[in-house]
């Protein structure tokens, strides 16, 4: 105890609701949180230092592990940066497959978030339903890439191998049944009075503070700012390589208040938008063919001198990968910018004078994942 009437309490690093090894030092006055200090670094693996001792290709599989729930996004950010530095063209078909897998990955990541968020709030069943559906996606990924989480599917300039038409058919089936499942989650949760009173007007993030704290992704969109790097002119990167997002028809869901409920709502709507994108990609892939295998065959890639930063709209906000090359086979410096890192930073502000149970409603809705914070 530091001061009178205040209870100092340590949440974590091992705690059921911190989704990993985040440590929060709280000062409670009764059940009201007076101050909060996040302590991170328990999962620091030195991803950036590791890059300096690995060649470009060796570093590629490791990248998936930065955010293990959405490995494709990290892979893409890194591949995109290296492709831009070396000026490799990526064929349209492989771009489409990349978008397809990335959107499916976003869906699976949001499903896991939904389950664990509701588990934190005390609802047990939705966890199992979301995991059941996520399992379908993971099985599809396993069929495509060979593993369920650490895909290592993208290579510089393309993909490891093409998708089969069987696989595309399976996705079509999946897309057909998924809206019903999402409707089920919404039936259980969205209008539930306990859930709404626990999340509405809790953890309100204003537009200004969201930008001040560099919040991105669904958390930012819940405050009413319609920003998505998928929709800007050069999606994901300021590069000559154009992605195919402009060709696709999709809406970016936004909300107004920026509270926990809006963050929930935005993510659920985003799941529906993902399904739309997936079915469009599948349609394109079924009617068009092309080469996906990378033109680069040699394992030792020499990247010309230069620097590049590529931005991806990952499920947890913008994921940027900065690569600086000095012309050798190893990157000179790689820097990762991830969404959760900044979401942790805004926690003390959101938690000020909140009730202790609100901690779960706020922290859960921010969708923080710790390997991404610590890297």
């Amino acid at each position, binding site marked *: 105890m530091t001061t009178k009437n205040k*209870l100092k*309490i340590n949440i974590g690093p091992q*705690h*059921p*609701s911190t989704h990993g090894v985040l440590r929060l030092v709280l000062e*409670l006055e009764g*059940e009201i949180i007076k101050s909060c200090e996040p302590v991170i670094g328990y999962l620091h693996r030195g991803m950036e230092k590791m890059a300096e001792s690995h060649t470009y290709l060796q570093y590629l599989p490791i990248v998936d592990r930065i955010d293990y729930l959405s490995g494709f996004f990290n892979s893409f950010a890194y591949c995109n940066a290296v492709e831009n530095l070396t000026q490799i063209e990526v064929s349209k078909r492989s771009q489409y497959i990349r978008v397809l897998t990335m959107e499916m990955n976003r869906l699976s990541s949001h499903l896991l978030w939904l389950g664990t968020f*509701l*588990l*934190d*709030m*005390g*609802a*047990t*069943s939705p*966890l*199992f*339903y979301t995991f*059941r559906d996520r399992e379908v996606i993971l099985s599809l990924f396993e069929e495509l890439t060979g593993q369920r989480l650490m895909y290592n599917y993208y290579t510089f300039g393309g993909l490891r191998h093409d998708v089969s038409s069987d696989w595309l058919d399976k996705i079509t089936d999946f897309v057909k049944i998924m809206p019903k499942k999402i409707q089920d989650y919404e039936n*259980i*949760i969205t209008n*539930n009075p*306990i*859930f709404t*009173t*626990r999340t509405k007007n809790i953890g309100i993030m204003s537009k200004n503070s969201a930008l001040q704290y560099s919040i991105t992704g669904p958390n930012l969109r819940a405050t009413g700012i319609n920003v998505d790097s998928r929709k800007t002119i050069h999606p994901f990167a300021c590069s000559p390589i154009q992605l195919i997002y402009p060709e696709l028809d999709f809406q970016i869901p936004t909300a107004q208040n920026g509270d926990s409920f809006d963050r929930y709502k935005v993510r659920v709507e985003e799941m529906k938008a993902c399904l739309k994108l997936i079915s469009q990609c599948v349609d394109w892939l079924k009617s068009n063919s092309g080469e996906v295998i990378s033109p680069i065959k040699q394992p030792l890639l020499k990247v010309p001198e230069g620097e590049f930063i590529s931005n991806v709209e990952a499920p947890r906000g913008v994921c940027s990968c900065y690569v600086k090359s000095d012309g050798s086979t190893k990157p000179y410096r790689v820097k990762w910018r991830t969404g959760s890192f900044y979401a942790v930073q805004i926690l003390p502000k959101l938690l000020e004078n909140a*009730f*202790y*149970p*609100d*901690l*779960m409603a706020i922290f859960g809705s921010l969708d923080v994942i710790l390997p991404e914070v610590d890297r």
Partner: protein
Amino acid sequence: MEYLYFLYIELLHKYNLPEFIGMTTFPLLPFCVVAVALILVVLFLVLMERKVLAFFTQRKGPNRVGPWGLFQTIADAIKLLCKENITPTGAEKFMFNLAPLLAFVPVMVIWGLIPFSSEFDFMSYSVSALLFMTIASIPILGILLAGYASNNKYSLIGSFRAVAQAISYELPLVFVLVSVVVLASSLNLRQIVLAQISVYPFCGWFIFPAFLGFLIFFICATAELNRCPFDLPEAESELVSGYNTEYSGMKFAFFFLAEYAMMFIMCAFMATLFLGGFLSPFGFYLSEKFINNTFWAQISVYFEQVFWLFLKTFFLIFCMMLVRATLPRLKSNQLMGFAWKVLLPLSFLNLFFICCYKYFIYAK
């Protein structure tokens, strides 16, 4: 009862045992029966909860130990028994060890108050409904003690919550009980059940005049039992495990046992008050119809009454499990507000309505 006592003394005489042994041990026998029955019921209940929750979430539930996992809880109990009993260094030793007993023993006692059939209830007093409520609120002391003695902040917060919750939900609970007492004109639980007999099958049950009361009672009972959505004292995502964070082994098993036993007893109490207790829903007993021998028919009626009570109880428990599977947890201030602002006025309304009903319709 006297007949049973007579039989017991006869049995002792056969083995040449003096009568005073019979006099002293006979009152203990029902308690032994109760204790064994309770533990068996709890073992089954834990399995049932796991199975039912599994069915709600498209899983299979425990199915490794024994057929359909029937012995799973027994295996768990053995595991808990074999575990080391740890008392943390910073804990108040005496109180730390006392707390599980304080939570467990009252539960064993009130189990005897439930009328299982029209003849056998182990303890029958003219004020047994009141007694039930009184003893049922003792385990909360055990929880408070556990939280205080553990020297753990999570436990402390958990036990504070438990006490606050118990106090605020006790009030609507008692007011609904009063309305039932008004309907039955008795505080004796057996009399309350017998007052629910009517000409038409199951129409006399108190759930029909006091449906609102039943809902309030169900909610408050869920809160009293610290079950989801009112499981704040042991909210896993907030307080790790609440008041029993520091407990392990057999001491934890006591808390666990008390929790599930209390759940069964609360549901049985609810069935007694609102769903006609041991009464058959058909208006007649099946054994009366199918067994011709009058003596055996009478005996089997008692067992059938126990069966009906258990059936109703398990139905209520199933409802509680469904609630647990669906709802998210409430927030502490929301919980208080709900009790004082919604449930208490509603229970007054219920009481007022019941009094009018009793005065204008039922009495005539």
